[in-house]
């Protein structure tokens, strides 16, 4: 376990060096990610302009939700995983996974964590400021406990989101030319921006159900509206999803036939 922490530190160092070597890219990346963050906020602003409440969430609460979305998904998730998942489609398609499998390191860990898009850190920072401001507007008193709960639940939410992505991307081992799989996941990600009740109407979309927990439950923690049921639900879901993605990946590797397959 400690070994993997060390390895990840090395990855971070390498990514930092890479980022510093291309500073114009860094600036570009920061501006672009901030732009996307701004767009997501404007979208929510326009969408809630004429309706005071949606699925029982008030306008300020929805703003907090989009803030948390930007911290967790737009910021942290993209920072940790976006480039890795992008590369995964290439790695599998070109048979480079062989090289990865030969390394004395867990393949899922390597493939998921080797890159880090540091510029998204800017989005996380701004989103934190934005969310804090929105919490203030929603008249939510400051609470260290709520913040602590938020951090723990955010990590669980990220685990769930990671698992959903990775499970879908594992399908690439059987269908290596489905490059728009990653594209479709960006669209499906959008479910996390909205209150969980959005899927009430379509219960048959139960596959998307874990996604509704990712952002909304940590957001509820910040808004201090968390229930015990929510907490248990997200813990169980995270554990199950983690188990599924691990098992599925190991299972899929048996079918990996490299570039000549």
């Amino acid at each position, binding site marked *: 376990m400690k070994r993997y922490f060390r390895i990840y530190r090395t990855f971070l160092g390498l990514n930092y060096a890479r980022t510093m070597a291309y500073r114009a890219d860094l600036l570009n990346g920061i501006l672009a990610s901030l732009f996307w963050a701004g767009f997501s906020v*404007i979208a929510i602003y326009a*969408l809630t302009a004429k309706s005071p409440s949606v699925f029982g969430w008030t306008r300020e609460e929805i703003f907090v939700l989009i803030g948390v979305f930007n911290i967790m998904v737009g910021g942290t998730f993209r920072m940790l995983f976006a480039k890795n998942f992008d590369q995964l489609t290439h790695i599998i398609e070109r048979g480079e996974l062989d090289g990865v499998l030969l390394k004395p390191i867990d393949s899922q860990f390597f493939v998921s964590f080797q890159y880090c898009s540091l510029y998204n850190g800017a989005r996380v920072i701004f989103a934190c400021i934005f969310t804090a401001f929105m919490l203030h507007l929603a008249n939510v008193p400051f609470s260290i406990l709520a913040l602590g709960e938020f951090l723990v639940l955010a990590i669980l939410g990220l685990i769930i989101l990671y698992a959903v992505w990775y499970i879908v991307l594992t399908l690439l081992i059987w269908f290596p030319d489905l490059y728009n799989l990653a594209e479709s996941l960006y669209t499906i990600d959008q479910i996390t921006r*909205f209150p969980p009740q959005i899927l009430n109407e379509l219960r048959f979309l139960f596959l998307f159900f874990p996604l509704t927990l990712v952002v909304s439950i940590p957001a509820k923690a910040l808004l201090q509206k968390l229930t015990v049921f929510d907490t248990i639900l997200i813990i169980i879901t995270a554990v199950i999803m983690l188990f599924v993605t691990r098992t599925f990946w190991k299972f899929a590797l048996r079918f990996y036939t490299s570039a000549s397959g």
Partner: protein
Amino acid sequence: MKYYRIFVLHLQQVFEQKGQTFVWILLSFMGPLLMILFWRGAKAIPGWTIEQLTAYYFLIIIVGAFVMTHIEERIGKIDIQEGQLTMYLLKPFSYFWFKFYYSVPNRILQGIFGSTFFLFCVSLFPSLFSFNITPAIFLFSFLLVVVGFFMAFLFKVIIGIMAFWMTEAKGLFEVINIIVTIFAGYLMPIALFPQWLQDITFVTPFPYMIYYPVIAFTGKLQVNEMVQIFLMQLVWVVILYFVYRLVWTAGIKKFSAVGQ
């Protein structure tokens, strides 16, 4: 004549990829699906029922598929940056019209796929949608879509030509995509924007490309309003054409001077 050949050739190419195209169209319905689900939870939307909104979002995708070309990526990346433009300039036909007839097959195919999927949904779940349409309105709306395509094409060509001056045109294209998403009505009906945003939006050409044709199809427009919009579209076509000529002449000069 020669442009017809270009159209048919590319039509064949596009049909070869119909599988991928089909998947793209299905994917593009995901966003609006989420929007529809979102609105179902909203309290009190002024002037719109949920059935009208559902119809709106489906129509936005279909009209968008027919109208919104992505030719700026070909022009900017492949032709200008990679220098393929030289090949076109040497040929005995207009680059503009070549790109035009090149764009049409993709639009038609995606539009047809979208419409088919839409008709499929309407026949399965008629109660989810609400229309108010007569054949005359339908035809006129279709006319608005066609002129909308001309507008969109001109606009995207202008954007693509920007690559003459920018090395990283990709960033510009992304920004434009977002602007179009908001101002063409993909996000939500412009009538539901806050007033100040509506005022800004109607100064731009984008609502005339997609939003208004969609509104026309839902039957929310009177005949005289449709005529006004049609005229406004023509005005925009003229303006955009002039901008295009300006930008093109300036760009071509620069292109030949650098000798890519």
